[in-house]
Protein backbone atom coordinates (compact mmCIF):
# COMPACT_ATOMS: atom_id res chain seq x y z
CA UNK A 1 0.00 0.00 0.00
CA UNK A 2 1.35 3.41 -1.00
CA UNK A 3 -0.24 6.50 0.53
CA UNK A 4 0.37 10.14 -0.35
CA UNK A 5 -0.72 12.92 2.01
CA UNK A 6 -0.89 16.50 0.72
CA UNK A 7 0.45 19.02 3.22
CA UNK A 8 -0.12 22.74 3.01
CA UNK A 9 1.45 25.54 5.03
CA UNK A 10 -1.04 28.05 6.47
CA UNK A 11 -0.91 30.94 8.94
CA UNK A 12 -1.68 30.02 12.54
CA UNK A 13 -5.40 30.23 13.35
CA UNK A 14 -4.82 33.28 15.58
CA UNK A 15 -2.70 35.14 12.99
CA UNK A 16 -3.72 38.72 12.30
CA UNK A 17 -5.12 38.88 8.79
CA UNK A 18 -3.86 41.97 6.97
CA UNK A 19 -2.58 42.80 3.50
CA UNK A 20 0.26 44.86 2.04
CA UNK A 21 1.37 46.13 -1.38
CA UNK A 22 -1.89 47.87 -2.09
CA UNK A 23 -3.91 44.92 -0.76
CA UNK A 24 -2.36 42.43 -3.16
CA UNK A 25 -0.24 40.44 -0.68
CA UNK A 26 -0.88 38.74 2.65
CA UNK A 27 1.11 40.55 5.38
CA UNK A 28 3.28 37.62 6.42
CA UNK A 29 5.55 39.57 8.80
CA UNK A 30 5.59 38.01 12.25
CA UNK A 31 3.08 35.33 11.26
CA UNK A 32 3.50 31.83 12.70
CA UNK A 33 3.10 29.08 10.14
CA UNK A 34 1.45 25.75 10.82
CA UNK A 35 0.48 22.64 8.90
CA UNK A 36 -3.02 23.26 7.61
CA UNK A 37 -5.13 21.74 10.45
CA UNK A 38 -7.25 19.56 8.13
CA UNK A 39 -4.11 18.12 6.52
CA UNK A 40 -2.45 17.47 9.86
CA UNK A 41 -5.21 16.39 12.24
CA UNK A 42 -7.23 14.35 9.82
CA UNK A 43 -5.42 13.37 6.58
CA UNK A 44 -1.95 12.79 8.03
CA UNK A 45 -3.02 11.21 11.32
CA UNK A 46 -5.44 8.85 9.55
CA UNK A 47 -2.63 7.83 7.17
CA UNK A 48 -0.38 7.18 10.17
CA UNK A 49 -3.06 5.00 11.74
CA UNK A 50 -3.37 3.01 8.51
CA UNK A 51 0.41 2.58 8.43
CA UNK A 52 0.40 1.41 12.03
CA UNK A 53 -2.09 -1.30 11.10
CA UNK A 54 -0.04 -2.41 8.10
CA UNK A 55 3.66 -1.83 8.54
CA UNK A 56 4.42 -2.48 4.87
CA UNK A 57 2.60 0.75 3.99
CA UNK A 58 4.75 3.39 2.32
CA UNK A 59 3.70 6.89 3.38
CA UNK A 60 4.85 9.96 1.47
CA UNK A 61 4.02 13.60 2.14
CA UNK A 62 3.90 16.20 -0.60
CA UNK A 63 3.91 19.96 -0.47
CA UNK A 64 3.85 22.40 -3.35
CA UNK A 65 5.68 25.42 -2.03
CA UNK A 66 8.85 27.41 -1.67
CA UNK A 67 11.83 26.61 0.58
CA UNK A 68 10.05 28.53 3.37
CA UNK A 69 7.61 25.60 3.65
CA UNK A 70 10.33 23.22 4.80
CA UNK A 71 9.98 23.80 8.58
CA UNK A 72 6.29 22.90 8.28
CA UNK A 73 7.13 19.81 6.18
CA UNK A 74 9.65 18.71 8.84
CA UNK A 75 6.96 19.20 11.47
CA UNK A 76 4.71 16.86 9.51
CA UNK A 77 7.54 14.33 9.17
CA UNK A 78 7.94 14.50 12.96
CA UNK A 79 4.42 13.10 13.28
CA UNK A 80 5.34 10.32 10.87
CA UNK A 81 5.72 9.36 7.24
CA UNK A 82 8.69 7.88 5.38
CA UNK A 83 9.73 10.79 3.22
CA UNK A 84 8.49 14.09 1.87
CA UNK A 85 8.50 15.68 -1.55
CA UNK A 86 8.45 19.43 -2.06
CA UNK A 87 7.57 20.68 -5.51
CA UNK A 88 9.41 23.95 -5.75
CA UNK A 89 6.66 26.35 -6.80
CA UNK A 90 4.94 29.19 -5.00
CA UNK A 91 1.87 29.15 -7.22
CA UNK A 92 -1.45 30.13 -5.61
CA UNK A 93 -3.55 28.68 -8.44
CA UNK A 94 -5.28 25.47 -7.33
CA UNK A 95 -5.07 23.90 -10.79
CA UNK A 96 -1.32 24.51 -10.99
CA UNK A 97 -0.80 23.01 -7.52
CA UNK A 98 -3.04 20.01 -8.26
CA UNK A 99 -1.19 19.42 -11.54
CA UNK A 100 2.14 19.25 -9.68
CA UNK A 101 0.75 16.75 -7.18
CA UNK A 102 -0.87 14.66 -9.93
CA UNK A 103 2.35 14.58 -11.97
CA UNK A 104 4.34 13.29 -9.02
CA UNK A 105 1.58 10.85 -8.00
CA UNK A 106 1.49 9.38 -11.50
CA UNK A 107 5.21 8.65 -11.37
CA UNK A 108 4.89 6.71 -8.10
CA UNK A 109 1.43 5.14 -8.44
CA UNK A 110 -0.23 5.67 -5.04
CA UNK A 111 -3.20 3.59 -3.90
CA UNK A 112 -4.58 6.32 -1.69
CA UNK A 113 -4.16 10.10 -1.78
CA UNK A 114 -5.39 12.12 1.20
CA UNK A 115 -5.90 15.87 1.46
CA UNK A 116 -7.59 18.10 4.02
CA UNK A 117 -11.10 19.27 3.08
CA UNK A 118 -9.73 22.77 2.51
CA UNK A 119 -6.89 25.03 3.59
CA UNK A 120 -7.75 27.57 6.24
CA UNK A 121 -6.18 30.42 4.23
CA UNK A 122 -7.58 30.27 0.69
CA UNK A 123 -10.49 27.92 1.52
CA UNK A 124 -10.43 26.52 -2.01
CA UNK A 125 -11.63 22.97 -1.26
CA UNK A 126 -10.32 22.15 -4.72
CA UNK A 127 -7.03 20.26 -4.68
CA UNK A 128 -8.39 16.77 -3.92
CA UNK A 129 -11.05 16.89 -6.62
CA UNK A 130 -8.65 18.27 -9.21
CA UNK A 131 -5.97 15.68 -8.44
CA UNK A 132 -8.58 12.92 -8.68
CA UNK A 133 -9.75 14.14 -12.07
CA UNK A 134 -6.21 14.51 -13.40
CA UNK A 135 -5.47 10.92 -12.29
CA UNK A 136 -8.89 9.60 -13.34
CA UNK A 137 -9.54 8.27 -9.82
CA UNK A 138 -12.76 8.36 -7.78
CA UNK A 139 -13.00 11.12 -5.18
CA UNK A 140 -14.72 11.41 -1.83
CA UNK A 141 -14.92 14.92 -0.36
CA UNK A 142 -15.84 15.99 3.19
CA UNK A 143 -14.92 12.54 4.49
CA UNK A 144 -15.31 11.87 8.21
CA UNK A 145 -14.28 8.18 8.26
CA UNK A 146 -12.11 5.91 6.18
CA UNK A 147 -11.59 2.19 6.63
CA UNK A 148 -9.60 -0.08 4.34
CA UNK A 149 -10.12 -3.74 3.78
CA UNK A 150 -7.81 -5.08 1.08
CA UNK A 151 -8.28 -2.80 -1.89
CA UNK A 152 -11.75 -1.63 -0.87
CA UNK A 153 -12.30 1.57 1.07
CA UNK A 154 -15.39 2.26 3.13
CA UNK A 155 -15.78 6.02 3.45
CA UNK A 156 -18.28 8.14 5.34
CA UNK A 157 -18.87 11.61 3.97
CA UNK A 158 -20.90 14.54 5.17
CA UNK A 159 -23.99 15.52 3.22
CA UNK A 160 -26.52 18.25 4.08
CA UNK A 161 -28.21 17.17 7.29
CA UNK A 162 -26.45 13.85 7.69
CA UNK A 163 -23.91 11.45 6.29
CA UNK A 164 -23.52 8.89 3.56
CA UNK A 165 -21.47 5.70 3.62
CA UNK A 166 -19.93 4.45 0.40
CA UNK A 167 -17.70 1.68 -0.82
CA UNK A 168 -15.02 2.45 -3.38
CA UNK A 169 -12.11 0.43 -4.67
CA UNK A 170 -8.62 1.86 -4.65
CA UNK A 171 -6.92 3.85 -6.04
CA UNK A 172 -8.84 6.71 -4.51
CA UNK A 173 -8.55 10.36 -3.47
CA UNK A 174 -10.16 11.42 -0.17
CA UNK A 175 -10.52 14.93 1.31
CA UNK A 176 -10.57 14.60 5.10
CA UNK A 177 -12.26 16.51 7.89
CA UNK A 178 -13.24 16.16 11.49
CA UNK A 179 -14.09 12.67 12.66
CA UNK A 180 -11.33 11.02 10.62
CA UNK A 181 -8.81 10.85 13.47
CA UNK A 182 -7.77 12.54 16.71
CA UNK A 183 -5.03 15.18 16.57
CA UNK A 184 -1.60 14.04 17.77
CA UNK A 185 1.42 15.84 19.16
CA UNK A 186 4.85 14.85 17.79
CA UNK A 187 7.12 13.23 20.38
CA UNK A 188 10.87 13.74 20.83
CA UNK A 189 11.73 10.58 18.91
CA UNK A 190 9.62 11.70 16.00
CA UNK A 191 11.20 15.14 15.97
CA UNK A 192 14.72 13.63 15.98
CA UNK A 193 13.81 11.12 13.26
CA UNK A 194 12.30 13.84 11.07
CA UNK A 195 15.68 15.57 10.80
CA UNK A 196 17.18 12.69 8.88
CA UNK A 197 14.16 11.72 6.79
CA UNK A 198 14.43 12.46 3.12
CA UNK A 199 12.89 15.71 1.89
CA UNK A 200 13.20 15.59 -1.87
CA UNK A 201 12.88 18.83 -3.81
CA UNK A 202 11.62 18.52 -7.36
CA UNK A 203 11.07 21.22 -9.94
CA UNK A 204 7.51 21.97 -11.12
CA UNK A 205 6.16 21.02 -14.53
CA UNK A 206 4.96 23.90 -16.70
CA UNK A 207 1.24 24.54 -16.21
CA UNK A 208 -0.83 27.52 -17.25
CA UNK A 209 -2.69 29.03 -14.29
CA UNK A 210 -6.47 29.27 -14.62
CA UNK A 211 -6.93 31.88 -11.89
CA UNK A 212 -5.10 34.76 -10.30
CA UNK A 213 -5.87 36.81 -7.20
CA UNK A 214 -6.08 40.51 -8.08
CA UNK A 215 -6.56 41.86 -4.56
CA UNK A 216 -7.76 41.24 -1.03
CA UNK A 217 -10.12 43.08 1.29
CA UNK A 218 -11.34 42.97 4.86
CA UNK A 219 -15.02 42.84 5.84
CA UNK A 220 -16.44 46.08 7.28
CA UNK A 221 -16.31 46.30 11.08
CA UNK A 222 -19.52 45.69 13.02
CA UNK A 223 -21.41 48.85 13.90
CA UNK A 224 -21.36 47.98 17.60
CA UNK A 225 -23.36 45.82 19.91
CA UNK A 226 -26.70 46.81 21.43
CA UNK A 227 -26.79 45.49 25.00
CA UNK A 228 -30.02 44.35 26.60
CA UNK A 229 -30.29 43.93 30.40
CA UNK A 230 -30.66 40.28 31.45
CA UNK A 231 -33.88 41.03 33.35
CA UNK A 232 -35.47 42.24 30.09
CA UNK A 233 -34.49 39.29 27.94
CA UNK A 234 -37.90 39.46 26.20
CA UNK A 235 -36.79 42.81 24.79
CA UNK A 236 -34.24 40.87 22.70
CA UNK A 237 -37.06 39.01 21.00
CA UNK A 238 -38.89 42.26 20.24
CA UNK A 239 -35.74 43.80 18.72
CA UNK A 240 -35.00 40.71 16.64
CA UNK A 241 -38.55 40.79 15.34
CA UNK A 242 -39.15 44.50 14.84
CA UNK A 243 -35.73 46.04 14.34
CA UNK A 244 -33.51 43.34 12.85
CA UNK A 245 -36.46 41.55 11.20
CA UNK A 246 -34.55 38.33 11.77
CA UNK A 247 -37.36 36.30 13.37
Amino acid at each position, binding site marked *: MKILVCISKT*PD*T*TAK*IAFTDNNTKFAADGVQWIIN*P*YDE*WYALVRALELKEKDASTVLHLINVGGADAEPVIRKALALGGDEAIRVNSDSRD*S*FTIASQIATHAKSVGYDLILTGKET*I*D*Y*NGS*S*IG*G*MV*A*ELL*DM*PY*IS*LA*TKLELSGTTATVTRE*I*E*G*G*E*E*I*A*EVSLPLVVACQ*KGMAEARIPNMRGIMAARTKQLKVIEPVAVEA*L*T*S*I*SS*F*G*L*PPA*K*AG*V*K*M*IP*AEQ*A*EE*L*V*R*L*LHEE*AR*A*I
Partner: protein
Amino acid sequence: MSVLIYIDHADNQVKKSSLEALSYGSDLAKQLGTEADALILGTVEDDLALLGKYGVRNVYQVSNPQLNQLDAQVFTAVIADAISKTGADTIVFSGNATGKAVAPRLSARLKAGLVTGAVALPDTANGFTVKKTVFSGKAFAFVQLLSPIKIISVNPNSYSVKEGSGSAEISSLDITVPAPKVKVTATNKVSGSVPLGEAEIVVSGGRGLKGPENWGMIEELAGLLGAATACSRPVADSHWRPHHEHVGQTGLAIAPNLYIAVGISGAIQHLAGVNRSKVIVVINKDPEAPFFKQADYGIVGDAFEVMPKVIDAVKKLKGK
Protein backbone atom coordinates in the same frame (compact mmCIF):
# COMPACT_ATOMS: atom_id res chain seq x y z
CA MET B 1 -22.42 31.35 -24.90
CA SER B 2 -24.73 30.88 -21.93
CA VAL B 3 -24.76 30.38 -18.19
CA LEU B 4 -25.51 26.86 -16.97
CA ILE B 5 -26.61 26.36 -13.37
CA TYR B 6 -26.20 22.97 -11.78
CA ILE B 7 -29.28 21.95 -9.75
CA ASP B 8 -28.67 19.74 -6.75
CA HIS B 9 -31.38 17.69 -5.11
CA ALA B 10 -32.04 15.26 -2.30
CA ASP B 11 -35.12 13.33 -1.21
CA ASN B 12 -36.80 14.09 -4.55
CA GLN B 13 -36.59 17.84 -4.01
CA VAL B 14 -34.45 20.64 -5.37
CA LYS B 15 -32.21 22.05 -2.62
CA LYS B 16 -32.61 25.60 -1.38
CA SER B 17 -28.92 26.26 -2.03
CA SER B 18 -29.60 25.49 -5.69
CA LEU B 19 -32.32 28.16 -5.78
CA GLU B 20 -29.64 30.62 -4.64
CA ALA B 21 -27.34 29.35 -7.39
CA LEU B 22 -30.21 29.76 -9.89
CA SER B 23 -30.83 33.35 -8.84
CA TYR B 24 -27.09 34.05 -9.01
CA GLY B 25 -26.76 32.44 -12.43
CA SER B 26 -29.80 34.23 -13.89
CA ASP B 27 -28.57 37.60 -12.64
CA LEU B 28 -25.13 36.83 -14.06
CA ALA B 29 -26.64 35.94 -17.45
CA LYS B 30 -28.47 39.28 -17.48
CA GLN B 31 -25.25 41.07 -16.64
CA LEU B 32 -23.46 39.26 -19.48
CA GLY B 33 -26.32 39.80 -21.93
CA THR B 34 -26.87 36.10 -22.40
CA GLU B 35 -29.31 33.35 -21.31
CA ALA B 36 -29.36 31.14 -18.23
CA ASP B 37 -30.21 27.45 -18.33
CA ALA B 38 -30.30 24.81 -15.60
CA LEU B 39 -28.97 21.27 -15.55
CA ILE B 40 -30.26 18.52 -13.32
CA LEU B 41 -28.87 15.00 -13.07
CA GLY B 42 -31.23 12.30 -11.86
CA THR B 43 -34.89 12.59 -10.98
CA VAL B 44 -37.05 14.67 -8.63
CA GLU B 45 -40.76 15.00 -7.85
CA ASP B 46 -40.67 18.80 -8.04
CA ASP B 47 -42.13 20.37 -11.18
CA LEU B 48 -38.95 21.46 -12.96
CA ALA B 49 -40.79 23.91 -15.21
CA LEU B 50 -41.28 26.03 -12.09
CA LEU B 51 -37.54 26.71 -12.01
CA GLY B 52 -38.41 29.26 -14.69
CA LYS B 53 -39.47 31.48 -11.78
CA TYR B 54 -35.80 31.94 -11.00
CA GLY B 55 -35.01 33.20 -14.47
CA VAL B 56 -33.87 30.15 -16.42
CA ARG B 57 -34.98 29.47 -19.97
CA ASN B 58 -34.34 25.73 -20.24
CA VAL B 59 -33.99 22.97 -17.71
CA TYR B 60 -31.86 20.20 -19.15
CA GLN B 61 -32.31 16.88 -17.45
CA VAL B 62 -30.31 13.66 -17.62
CA SER B 63 -32.94 11.54 -15.95
CA ASN B 64 -30.94 8.40 -15.32
CA PRO B 65 -31.86 7.29 -11.76
CA GLN B 66 -28.25 6.13 -11.23
CA LEU B 67 -27.53 9.86 -10.95
CA ASN B 68 -29.60 10.15 -7.79
CA GLN B 69 -26.43 9.08 -5.97
CA LEU B 70 -23.28 11.10 -6.12
CA ASP B 71 -20.18 9.73 -7.77
CA ALA B 72 -18.17 12.88 -8.49
CA GLN B 73 -16.27 11.21 -11.31
CA VAL B 74 -19.44 10.16 -13.14
CA PHE B 75 -21.15 13.51 -12.52
CA THR B 76 -18.15 15.35 -13.92
CA ALA B 77 -18.16 13.33 -17.13
CA VAL B 78 -21.91 13.86 -17.59
CA ILE B 79 -21.78 17.60 -16.84
CA ALA B 80 -18.82 18.06 -19.21
CA ASP B 81 -20.84 16.38 -21.93
CA ALA B 82 -23.85 18.58 -21.16
CA ILE B 83 -21.67 21.68 -21.38
CA SER B 84 -20.45 20.77 -24.83
CA LYS B 85 -24.00 19.94 -25.97
CA THR B 86 -25.47 23.21 -24.67
CA GLY B 87 -22.54 25.48 -25.52
CA ALA B 88 -22.46 26.96 -22.00
CA ASP B 89 -19.32 28.82 -21.03
CA THR B 90 -20.10 29.88 -17.46
CA ILE B 91 -21.08 27.18 -15.00
CA VAL B 92 -22.60 27.95 -11.59
CA PHE B 93 -22.70 25.52 -8.65
CA SER B 94 -23.88 25.91 -5.11
CA GLY B 95 -20.84 25.46 -2.86
CA ASN B 96 -22.60 22.71 -0.91
CA ALA B 97 -21.37 19.13 -0.44
CA THR B 98 -22.09 18.17 -4.06
CA GLY B 99 -20.58 21.36 -5.44
CA LYS B 100 -17.43 20.77 -3.41
CA ALA B 101 -17.11 17.26 -4.84
CA VAL B 102 -17.84 18.06 -8.47
CA ALA B 103 -16.79 21.64 -9.33
CA PRO B 104 -13.01 21.09 -8.82
CA ARG B 105 -13.07 17.93 -10.95
CA LEU B 106 -14.91 19.75 -13.71
CA SER B 107 -12.40 22.59 -13.51
CA ALA B 108 -9.48 20.20 -14.02
CA ARG B 109 -11.27 18.32 -16.78
CA LEU B 110 -12.19 21.40 -18.83
CA LYS B 111 -9.15 23.50 -17.83
CA ALA B 112 -11.75 25.99 -16.68
CA GLY B 113 -10.87 28.51 -13.97
CA LEU B 114 -12.81 27.86 -10.77
CA VAL B 115 -13.65 30.15 -7.89
CA THR B 116 -15.17 28.51 -4.83
CA GLY B 117 -16.88 30.37 -2.00
CA ALA B 118 -18.16 33.19 -4.23
CA VAL B 119 -20.21 35.77 -2.31
CA ALA B 120 -21.13 38.28 -5.03
CA LEU B 121 -21.69 38.54 -8.77
CA PRO B 122 -18.48 38.82 -10.83
CA ASP B 123 -17.10 42.13 -11.93
CA THR B 124 -17.11 41.73 -15.71
CA ALA B 125 -16.27 45.31 -16.68
CA ASN B 126 -12.62 44.44 -17.09
CA GLY B 127 -12.01 40.71 -17.27
CA PHE B 128 -13.95 38.39 -14.96
CA THR B 129 -13.25 38.84 -11.25
CA VAL B 130 -15.19 37.13 -8.48
CA LYS B 131 -15.27 38.07 -4.80
CA LYS B 132 -14.81 35.09 -2.49
CA THR B 133 -14.19 34.54 1.20
CA VAL B 134 -10.66 33.63 2.32
CA PHE B 135 -9.00 33.08 5.69
CA SER B 136 -12.19 31.38 6.87
CA GLY B 137 -14.33 34.47 6.45
CA LYS B 138 -11.80 36.87 7.99
CA ALA B 139 -11.09 38.43 4.58
CA PHE B 140 -12.10 38.51 0.91
CA ALA B 141 -10.12 37.88 -2.23
CA PHE B 142 -10.96 39.06 -5.72
CA VAL B 143 -10.11 36.17 -8.01
CA GLN B 144 -9.72 36.61 -11.72
CA LEU B 145 -10.74 33.69 -13.95
CA LEU B 146 -8.38 33.52 -16.92
CA SER B 147 -9.84 30.69 -19.02
CA PRO B 148 -12.55 30.74 -21.72
CA ILE B 149 -14.84 28.47 -19.65
CA LYS B 150 -15.48 29.69 -16.10
CA ILE B 151 -16.86 27.91 -13.07
CA ILE B 152 -18.29 29.65 -10.01
CA SER B 153 -19.27 27.88 -6.82
CA VAL B 154 -21.47 30.14 -4.69
CA ASN B 155 -21.28 30.07 -0.89
CA PRO B 156 -24.60 28.86 0.55
CA ASN B 157 -26.63 31.69 2.14
CA SER B 158 -24.63 34.38 0.32
CA TYR B 159 -27.00 35.26 -2.49
CA SER B 160 -30.69 35.83 -1.95
CA VAL B 161 -33.23 33.78 -3.80
CA LYS B 162 -35.23 35.95 -6.21
CA GLU B 163 -38.52 34.51 -7.27
CA GLY B 164 -40.37 35.97 -10.23
CA SER B 165 -42.77 34.37 -12.67
CA GLY B 166 -42.11 32.29 -15.74
CA SER B 167 -41.91 28.72 -16.77
CA ALA B 168 -38.91 26.85 -18.07
CA GLU B 169 -38.78 24.48 -21.00
CA ILE B 170 -37.74 21.00 -19.89
CA SER B 171 -35.64 18.98 -22.28
CA SER B 172 -33.94 15.73 -21.66
CA LEU B 173 -30.32 15.33 -22.68
CA ASP B 174 -29.23 12.06 -24.16
CA ILE B 175 -25.92 11.40 -22.44
CA THR B 176 -24.25 8.08 -21.78
CA VAL B 177 -23.72 7.69 -18.05
CA PRO B 178 -20.49 5.86 -17.18
CA ALA B 179 -20.62 3.06 -14.59
CA PRO B 180 -20.08 4.42 -11.06
CA LYS B 181 -17.08 3.40 -8.95
CA VAL B 182 -18.59 4.76 -5.74
CA LYS B 183 -21.31 2.57 -4.28
CA VAL B 184 -23.44 4.28 -1.63
CA THR B 185 -24.38 1.66 0.96
CA ALA B 186 -26.20 3.81 3.55
CA THR B 187 -27.52 7.31 4.12
CA ASN B 188 -28.12 8.53 7.67
CA LYS B 189 -30.05 11.74 7.97
CA VAL B 190 -30.84 13.55 11.17
CA SER B 191 -34.58 13.54 10.61
CA GLY B 192 -36.74 16.60 10.98
CA SER B 193 -33.90 19.01 11.57
CA VAL B 194 -32.81 21.87 9.35
CA PRO B 195 -29.42 21.25 7.64
CA LEU B 196 -26.95 23.56 9.36
CA GLY B 197 -25.31 24.83 6.16
CA GLU B 198 -28.66 25.97 4.73
CA ALA B 199 -30.30 27.24 7.90
CA GLU B 200 -31.58 30.84 8.07
CA ILE B 201 -31.35 30.81 11.86
CA VAL B 202 -28.84 28.92 13.99
CA VAL B 203 -28.91 28.51 17.78
CA SER B 204 -25.50 27.50 19.06
CA GLY B 205 -24.18 26.45 22.45
CA GLY B 206 -20.71 26.44 23.99
CA ARG B 207 -18.91 25.12 27.01
CA GLY B 208 -20.81 27.63 29.14
CA LEU B 209 -23.78 25.25 29.04
CA LYS B 210 -21.83 22.89 31.30
CA GLY B 211 -22.98 19.57 29.84
CA PRO B 212 -25.03 17.78 27.18
CA GLU B 213 -27.99 17.44 29.55
CA ASN B 214 -28.54 21.21 29.28
CA TRP B 215 -29.11 21.30 25.52
CA GLY B 216 -32.89 21.10 25.95
CA MET B 217 -33.20 24.90 25.93
CA ILE B 218 -31.02 25.22 22.82
CA GLU B 219 -33.18 22.67 21.03
CA GLU B 220 -36.41 24.20 22.27
CA LEU B 221 -35.48 27.67 21.02
CA ALA B 222 -34.25 26.21 17.72
CA GLY B 223 -37.51 24.28 17.35
CA LEU B 224 -39.59 27.41 17.94
CA LEU B 225 -37.58 29.44 15.42
CA GLY B 226 -37.26 26.70 12.78
CA ALA B 227 -33.53 26.95 13.37
CA ALA B 228 -30.64 24.50 13.15
CA THR B 229 -28.47 23.79 16.19
CA ALA B 230 -24.69 24.21 16.30
CA CYS B 231 -21.89 24.17 18.86
CA SER B 232 -18.32 25.24 19.55
CA ARG B 233 -15.41 22.88 19.01
CA PRO B 234 -14.78 21.76 22.61
CA VAL B 235 -18.46 20.84 22.87
CA ALA B 236 -18.13 18.47 19.89
CA ASP B 237 -14.73 17.25 21.07
CA SER B 238 -16.24 16.31 24.44
CA HIS B 239 -19.00 14.45 22.55
CA TRP B 240 -21.70 16.61 24.11
CA ARG B 241 -22.95 17.17 20.57
CA PRO B 242 -22.28 15.43 17.24
CA HIS B 243 -19.27 16.50 15.17
CA HIS B 244 -21.37 17.83 12.31
CA GLU B 245 -22.66 20.62 14.59
CA HIS B 246 -19.16 22.02 15.14
CA VAL B 247 -18.84 25.45 13.54
CA GLY B 248 -15.71 27.56 13.19
CA GLN B 249 -12.43 27.66 11.40
CA THR B 250 -11.95 23.90 11.66
CA GLY B 251 -15.64 23.04 11.49
CA LEU B 252 -18.42 24.20 9.26
CA ALA B 253 -18.41 27.85 8.12
CA ILE B 254 -21.96 29.18 8.10
CA ALA B 255 -23.69 32.41 7.10
CA PRO B 256 -27.22 32.37 8.49
CA ASN B 257 -29.44 35.41 8.81
CA LEU B 258 -29.36 35.07 12.57
CA TYR B 259 -26.78 33.35 14.80
CA ILE B 260 -27.59 33.05 18.50
CA ALA B 261 -24.53 32.09 20.57
CA VAL B 262 -25.16 30.90 24.10
CA GLY B 263 -22.25 30.33 26.50
CA ILE B 264 -19.64 30.68 23.76
CA SER B 265 -16.63 32.90 24.45
CA GLY B 266 -16.03 33.95 20.83
CA ALA B 267 -12.50 32.68 20.26
CA ILE B 268 -11.01 33.82 16.96
CA GLN B 269 -11.30 30.29 15.53
CA HIS B 270 -14.98 30.15 16.40
CA LEU B 271 -15.67 33.60 14.95
CA ALA B 272 -14.01 32.60 11.69
CA GLY B 273 -16.83 30.18 10.97
CA VAL B 274 -19.75 32.40 11.95
CA ASN B 275 -18.74 35.99 11.25
CA ARG B 276 -20.62 36.10 7.95
CA SER B 277 -23.91 35.73 9.83
CA LYS B 278 -26.05 38.82 9.21
CA VAL B 279 -27.24 39.29 12.79
CA ILE B 280 -25.33 37.90 15.78
CA VAL B 281 -26.81 37.58 19.27
CA VAL B 282 -24.52 36.73 22.18
CA ILE B 283 -25.69 35.51 25.57
CA ASN B 284 -22.78 35.17 27.98
CA LYS B 285 -22.32 35.76 31.70
CA ASP B 286 -18.91 37.35 31.20
CA PRO B 287 -19.16 41.01 30.05
CA GLU B 288 -15.56 40.72 28.79
CA ALA B 289 -16.29 37.77 26.49
CA PRO B 290 -14.70 38.64 23.12
CA PHE B 291 -17.85 37.58 21.28
CA PHE B 292 -19.64 40.80 22.30
CA LYS B 293 -17.29 42.78 20.05
CA GLN B 294 -18.65 40.88 17.04
CA ALA B 295 -22.28 40.89 18.13
CA ASP B 296 -25.25 42.97 17.07
CA TYR B 297 -27.26 42.24 20.23
CA GLY B 298 -25.87 41.08 23.54
CA ILE B 299 -27.12 40.00 26.95
CA VAL B 300 -24.74 39.69 29.87
CA GLY B 301 -26.30 37.04 32.07
CA ASP B 302 -26.56 33.45 33.12
CA ALA B 303 -27.84 31.40 30.20
CA PHE B 304 -29.89 29.27 32.56
CA GLU B 305 -31.86 32.37 33.62
CA VAL B 306 -31.89 34.25 30.30
CA MET B 307 -32.83 31.43 27.93
CA PRO B 308 -36.17 30.54 29.57
CA LYS B 309 -37.21 34.21 29.29
CA VAL B 310 -36.18 34.33 25.64
CA ILE B 311 -38.04 31.09 24.95
CA ASP B 312 -41.20 32.43 26.63
CA ALA B 313 -41.04 35.64 24.64
CA VAL B 314 -40.61 33.73 21.38
CA LYS B 315 -43.57 31.51 22.29
CA LYS B 316 -45.69 34.64 22.82
CA LEU B 317 -44.49 36.11 19.54
CA LYS B 318 -45.35 32.94 17.66
CA GLY B 319 -48.69 32.76 19.45
CA LYS B 320 -47.92 29.45 21.14
